[in-house]
């Protein structure tokens, strides 16, 4: 597998793709939270970007350009699905910073951990079970020793509480 450092140049579009597809995907997943959309948006970024791209640009320039494209693509996605910009790619998001080999980006995981740490125990637990461990409502209810109905209520309340934290809206 080809390795390219940022001061270098990509030999062809395939190198651009190989080196960046996982990074773009991870950025997109962090912004949409589901695989089908993350895949579509990743495809849209490359489809849009590779045409006009000149490989004479340095790897850093190519990445800046992919990121700019990703920003536009994400904005378009929210515009046509929810009519509101739920998440955006900001200046702090960069393709270089995305660790492609780790199972989750440290940043995403630590933000979520910081958020959860501020919640009461039962809220934290239901969110962990449902969102991070992908348990069904029933499984989560069993794990917590509560009824399914209450687990649902608890999940809504917990998410509302999480939404009110500073980590989310910043």
């Amino acid at each position: 597998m080809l390795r390219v450092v940022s001061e270098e140049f990509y030999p062809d579009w395939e190198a651009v793709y190989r080196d960046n597809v996982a990074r773009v995907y991870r950025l997109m997943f962090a912004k949409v939270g589901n695989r089908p959309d993350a895949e579509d948006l990743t495809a849209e970024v490359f489809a849009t970007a590779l045409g006009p791209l000149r490989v004479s640009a340095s790897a850093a320039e190519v990445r800046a350009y992919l990121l700019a494209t990703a920003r536009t693509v994400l904005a378009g996605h929210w515009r046509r699905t929810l009519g509101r910009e739920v998440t955006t790619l900001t200046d702090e998001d960069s393709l270089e910073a995305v660790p492609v080999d780790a199972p989750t980006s440290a940043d995403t995981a630590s933000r979520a951990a910081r958020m959860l740490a501020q919640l009461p125990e039962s809220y934290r637990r239901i969110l962990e079970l449902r969102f991070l461990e992908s348990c069904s409502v029933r499984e989560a209810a069993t794990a917590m020793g509560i009824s399914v109905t209450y687990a649902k209520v608890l999940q809504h309340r917990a998410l509302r509480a999480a939404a009110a934290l500073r980590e989310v809206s910043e």
Partner: protein
Amino acid sequence: MSPRGARRFVADLLRGRRPRSFRAQDTDLDELRAAIMLRSAQPGSGVPREEFVTDLHQRLADQLAGKSTTALAEPVRGPRPVVDGTRRRLVAASSIAASAAVVGAVADHVLTTRTPASGGQAGPQTLVPDAGQWRTVAASADLTEGGVQGFDLGTVVGFVSRTGGALRAVSGVCTHLGCRLALDAPTRQLNCPCHRTSFAINGELLRYQLRVPPPALPQLEVREADGAVQIFAPPGQA
């Protein structure tokens, strides 16, 4: 209790499905953000499927080999349950064109000046004259849903259309070498008489037989006022 659309969005995320669209309110946003943030903290969530990476590579290779010009932007998107299918499809198409237009600009910018461009708010490449005025091109009543009309303001020529209730105006000049585009009403396409290039009425490039794809058509600002459709264009030469 959060509104239904937001609740369904969260439920879809939890099932790993593509969330259904709905008209989100500002009050929903933080909850949606929290849900997205938690979902993306799931171990392994940020790693693309091998199949996807391989498949996309193939589609890009096809696109770059000229086997299809719009292939990627369109079929990539799987069917998505929508309330209003037509509107969505058209809006989707236009935003793809929009990103293409921005990218054209961004590419030159990034590659020549090395300044990271921000595409986020730029939207489609829009022609805004320094000294423009709102000029009427059609009566509102004459531009019905799904309609397209050409206009010639002397300073600017273009096409205005109404799709899904929204107005859009694009330049009527081919971005390749400047030939005037002709409207093919049945297919709602704008065809270049010179080199068999076609654009959608939202400005998106549909077809070309050139070595390099020409950029999407610039958008023009359009509004509806006092029963008239108006374009923001330079004043005409008297």
